[in-house]
């Protein structure tokens, strides 16, 4: 029987002589399988949303639009377009509509200014030129 150390040396030599038995292409194929099917440790784990989490995610996605959309619509729509007010000038009540959001006081001041400077007769079709409001009726 040979010496133990000699045997160990031979064992080491044989181990070192073991070669991976496949071709480069086969190893590449093996590596492709590993790379494509094994998640990397540094990648964040793929979290499957729970039912509640899914609804929270949907709500979070919709909520900004739900808040912003009415604001956008209001901002772009003619403000107070349908509002009619009664304005009194020289004892006459005017019903007017202003598409630009003018207050009754402002329109009253505008009407007074026009009456004072142009002496025009205020009629149902009078247009307050400065603001684009129109008088609908005068009583």
């Amino acid at each position, binding site marked *: 029987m040979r010496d133990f150390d000699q*045997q160990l040396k*031979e064992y080491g030599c044989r181990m070192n002589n*073991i070669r991976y038995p496949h071709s480069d292409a086969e*190893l590449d194929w093996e590596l492709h399988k590993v790379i494509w099917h094994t998640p990397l*440790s540094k990648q964040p784990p793929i979290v499957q949303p729970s039912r509640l989490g899914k609804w929270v995610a949907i709500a979070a996605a919709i909520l900004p639009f739900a808040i912003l959309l009415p604001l956008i619509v209001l901002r772009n729509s003619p403000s107070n377009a349908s509002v009619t007010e009664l304005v009194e000038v020289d004892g006459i009540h005017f019903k007017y509509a202003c598409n630009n959001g003018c207050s009754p006081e402002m329109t009253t001041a505008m009407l007074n200014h026009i009456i004072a400077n142009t002496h025009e007769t205020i009629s149902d079709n009078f247009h307050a030129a400065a603001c684009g409001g129109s008088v609908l009726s005068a009583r």
Partner: protein
Amino acid sequence: MESTERQFMDLIHRNRDMIWRVCSGFRLSEAWTTEDAFHEVLCALWIGFQSFDGRSSERTWIYRVAVNTMISIYRKMGNQPTCRAEPDDKSVSPYESIDLNDLIALLDSLPEPDRTIVNAHAQGYSHAEIAQITGLSVAAVGMRLSRALRKLRKQYNQ
């Protein structure tokens, strides 16, 4: 192909023989072939590849990952009966010699990490490299190796 994948594939191509040696050096149960073990080691290496910071050489890092994976496989095997890995036609198996089989049986009887230490020593790894592979100090590697070899010599000569 992404550069990470290319780097990984290059790394494996450079060290495939060594990985295969580690896989071949363990006696596996019938449920595990050396190729299965090789695949497991590749997966472990790929998972750990991006966290490999180069503190040790790539050779010792790969050896360590391979050994740890093989130990995990051993644990998974549990009490399954073991058999010698069938040598591939194109590879030279360490189990070809009957005389060596006695030695291999003795090596297999060693507990970890002594088994890995003796195996790496037989393959020509330095104490420093074995220390990096096993995570032990160089002094501890020297001491364990010395004790293991003494024990093996004694058992071998009986």
